[in-house]
């Protein structure tokens, strides 16, 4: 086996390299040669190919993502913005919060348990790398049709993996989503969100500075995980006798990650870390090049010092390995001994693999020979940028013209009642406890609200009761009908969910799940969703702090629905005043906030009853969303409501059923003047919520709404053990509960 050193590359300029197999385009390869002034070595090629991949370089998406920064609203709260491992938000009292959502879609399809588990592991390390203690996770999920055999394989595995990893890490799961739609068959979406808390002064960044500082790799040993593509290099070009195929599957070790968390937090506490980066996609290639690129100097790494799980790995494979549970830190020489001591305390393997150098090159050595000598920025931050063509798809006009408002509506009260039952028992609207009961929501002892609630809420400070609330939402059906509006509706819903619990929305993270960017129609959806989200964030004053793009979620020509998943973080100064969603107290009055219109495009009703998708999604009114949030927050602060639940998929009846079942109290509803019972129950107009108002507060509450110009209608009263829609039907709570709760267990056992 000949080692492809820099020297060797210089001497053999014409040697053929498998750049195409590694996914590089001809002009990209030419650019690498130009940057280096010679052909790349195998190791360099491996680094460039993976760092310039769509996943790492955002080459198709970044021209559109730019808007999140350019249009970002002025916000005093943003301490660290887009570009770092995760954004950091000031939540007051000296605390900062960092949060981010990421996708692990493809790995979760191949191996649901490990794919989903390592999705949690990866996002947790991102949060840890910012200097924060991870305090909670969430899991927005999308699967194919609920009764499709592959869903029976993917869902239980993914849920067990999320639980298996998150529970073992000791992070409460405080919310998420479970959505079924045939468009996700073969392309399930497993997104994972983590939130962490730190003091302002603890913020850490991924950058290597200070000549002579040590580069320390710590955590798990490096094995052959997730390096499928790069083994081409090892097997075909340089070492034809090597193992032909490496596993693309990464296996997680949550115990190792738990040790990594505790160890890293102790390293932070003793101020031993100058710069830090987690190892995720692209492994050491990414960590070393990003650390060096963001820092002032260069970096020299002795690759053969990396502790291996599999001694047969080639240097290229070591650079590419995506073995989990590893971190890379930059440490002053005087602090290195103490650093290693703390790692030893936690049984974490730590190795000095190199140091920060004077120059501006990233140099990697293997058995004394130089195999990489590159400008790190060219690898990490100056990858290719594509301006991919995009065009509004031709089919959209017909889809939008196919108005859901024209679908047959229930003919009488009996049919209306029947459709309500079908709705609340449909997989998307049914109770998700089969999933969420597999997640520990109590660990750490700071969970104030968790599923099923509008948002998860975590106490940050036990003395002052400062807390944060988080919700994630995304409706691919709306986005399919109109990606600009769909992205805004996703934001609006998450924002509303946070406000419903009494917290003030502050900042946004997003995971943009789309089909192939090489399809101009998909690219248009992507561009529209970005534009919509950026515009809405500006209006609502909530900057995007970070996120993730997942493209190529498609099988053949068929892409998933465009699915922007939006996470909103809010702050609440006193978690004891949280507003839960349960309707409990008989006699309290139910008020509906907002305007109800004839809006059924993309609705749950149109899907469940007519298997239909067409028309336009509900109208977006961001000023109304902001006003609604102010009302909900003020009502929480002044103790005017005992419960609140936002309206989204399934409309009013779905929300009332959920709140009544949670609180164990029934309701009598009266259809307001000017609305048909059907529209009242099933419309999905945005900007609405229901609240339970104690009688003693009604006047004050109504006055507040009137003063602020918020439409409000008293629609009923909490009473008995059934939901009665006056003049239409009565549904006993136990019948509703049975139908709402049996669906997922019946499907997944």
């Amino acid at each position, binding site marked *: 086996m000949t080692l492809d050193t820099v020297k060797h590359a210089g001497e053999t300029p014409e040697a053929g390299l498998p750049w195409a197999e590694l996914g590089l385009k001809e002009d990209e390869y030419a650019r690498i040669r130009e940057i280096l002034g010679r052909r790349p070595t195998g190791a360099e090629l491996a680094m460039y190919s993976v760092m310039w991949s769509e996943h790492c370089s955002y080459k198709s998406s970044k021209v559109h993502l730019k808007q999140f920064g350019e249009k970002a609203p002025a916000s005093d709260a943003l301490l660290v913005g887009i570009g770092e491992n995760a954004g950091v938000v000031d939540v007051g009292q000296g605390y900062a919060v960092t949060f981010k959502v990421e996708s692990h879609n493809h790995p979760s399809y191949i191996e649901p348990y490990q794919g989903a588990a390592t999705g949690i592991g990866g996002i947790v390390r991102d949060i840890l790398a910012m200097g924060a203690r991870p305090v909670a996770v969430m899991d927005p999920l999308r699967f194919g049709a609920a009764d499709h055999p592959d869903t029976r394989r993917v869902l239980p595995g993914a849920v*067990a993996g999320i*639980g*298996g990893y998150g*529970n*073992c*890490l*000791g992070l409460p799961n405080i919310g998420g989503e479970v959505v079924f739609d045939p468009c996700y068959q073969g392309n399930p979406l497993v997104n994972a969100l983590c939130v962490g808390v730190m003091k302002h002064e603890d913020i850490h960044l991924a950058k290597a500075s200070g000549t002579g500082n040590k580069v320390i790799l710590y955590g798990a040993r490096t094995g052959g995980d997730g390096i499928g593509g790069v083994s081409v290099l090892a097997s075909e070009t340089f070492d034809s006798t090597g193992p032909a195929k490496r596993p693309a599957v990464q296996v997680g*070790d*949550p*115990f*190792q990650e*738990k*040790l990594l968390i505790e160890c890293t937090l102790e390293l932070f506490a003793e101020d031993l870390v100058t710069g830090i980066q987690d190892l995720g996609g692209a492994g050491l290639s990414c960590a070393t090049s990003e650390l060096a690129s963001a820092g002032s100097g260069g970096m020299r790494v002795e690759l053969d010092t990396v502790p291996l799980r599999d001694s047969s790995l080639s240097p290229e494979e070591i650079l590419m390995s995506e073995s989990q549970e590893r971190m890379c830190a930059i440490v002053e020489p005087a602090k290195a001994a103490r650093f290693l001591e703390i790692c030893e305390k*936690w*049984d974490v393997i730590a190795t000095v693999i190199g140091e920060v150098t004077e120059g501006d090159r990233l140099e990697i050595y293997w058995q004394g020979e130089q195999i990489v000598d590159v400008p790190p920025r060219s690898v990490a931050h100056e990858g290719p940028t594509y301006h991919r063509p995009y065009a509004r798809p031709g089919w959209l006009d017909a889809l939008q013209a196919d108005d859901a408002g024209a679908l047959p509506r229930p003919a009488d009260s009996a049919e209306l009642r029947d459709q309500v039952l079908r709705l609340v028992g449909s997989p998307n609207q049914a109770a998700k406890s089969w999933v*969420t*009961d*597999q*997640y*520990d*929501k*109590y*660990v*750490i*002892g*700071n*969970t*104030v609200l968790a599923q099923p609630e509008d948002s998860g809420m975590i*106490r940050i400070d*036990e003395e002052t009761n400062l807390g944060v609330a988080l919700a994630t939402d995304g409706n691919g059906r709306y986005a399919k009908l109109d990606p600009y509006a769909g992205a805004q509706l996703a934001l609006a819903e998450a924002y509303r969910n946070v406000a419903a619990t009494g917290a003030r929305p502050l900042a946004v993270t997003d995971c943009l799940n789309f089909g192939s960017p090489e399809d101009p129609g998909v690219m248009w959806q992507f561009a529209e969703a970005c534009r919509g989200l950026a515009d809405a964030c500006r209006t609502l004053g909530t900057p995007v702090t970070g996120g993730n793009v997942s493209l190529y979620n498609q099988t053949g020509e068929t892409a998933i629905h465009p699915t922007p998943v939006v996470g909103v973080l809010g702050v609440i100064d006193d*978690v*004891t005043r949280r507003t839960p969603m349960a309707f409990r107290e008989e006699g309290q009055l139910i008020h509906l906030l907002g305007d109800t219109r004839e809006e059924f495009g993309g609705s749950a009703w149109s899907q469940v009853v007519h298997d239909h998708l067409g028309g336009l999604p509900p109208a977006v009114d961001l000023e109304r969303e902001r006003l609604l949030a102010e009302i909900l927050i003020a009502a929480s602060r002044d103790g005017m409501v005992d419960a609140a639940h936002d309206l989204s998929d399934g409309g009013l009846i779905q929300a009332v059923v959920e709140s009544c079942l949670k609180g164990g109290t029934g309701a009598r509803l009266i259809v307001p003047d000017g609305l048909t019972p059907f529209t009242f129950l099933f419309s999905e107009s945005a900007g609405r919520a229901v609240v339970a108002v104690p009688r003693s507060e009604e006047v004050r509450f109504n006055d507040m709404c009137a003063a602020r110009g918020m439409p409000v209608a008293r629609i009923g009263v909490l009473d008995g053990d059934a939901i009665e829609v006056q003049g239409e039907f009565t549904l006993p709570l136990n019948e509703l509960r049975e139908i709402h709760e049996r669906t997922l267990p019946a499907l997944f056992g």
Partner: protein
Amino acid sequence: MTTRIGVVTFPGSLDDRDAQRAVRLAGGEPVALWHRDKNLHQVDAVVLPGGFSYGDYLRCGAIARFSPVMETVIEQARAGMPVLGICNGFQVLCESHLLPGALTRNDHLHFVCRDQKLRVDNADTAWTSDYSPGQEITVPLKNGEGGYVAAERTLDALEAEGRVVFRYLDGNPNGSRRDIAGITNEAGNVVGLMPHPEHAVETLTGPTTDGLGFFTSVLKKLVAA
């Protein structure tokens, strides 16, 4: 002088801070104990908290049992020191043979997290004297391997000697034999259970405050001693 209650942290312990908080809220002084340290630092009682010690990879609690701190805990427990094992801590106590039986995979094979109703069948142990016999309490339950099993004659003996301390009500969540949620040793100083009383000590974060009684029980007993 406050009463010192040690809470052991094994690698992979998760509910250790929660147990410390519960001790504090009950009026005791929590003392963090480290798995590598044999010294119990003059604590008056010990809590083995929930979590996944050593990843729970071999069997839950199997590796933790051999840690240095457990040498002293086992010795002191035999000498009468109150020891409470919660969830993973219960598993460690069984693996250490301080309590009989074993905890196996839930019969439905899923991890389950829910609020669980229990009956206190023995209100005479070091950790339950603040409850009344037959009292019903609700505390969180969260585990993947919580099915209590033991030989028939061991189960009969536990029943006969009144050593079943807690039983599941309203549905057995994991297939435990005879609905057993927690047991005690003959002396009544060592108690283990799968549910998590330390997560039911504040109305803000737990379903109830029913779990506080564990900690007030042991504090009273120690002050009286």
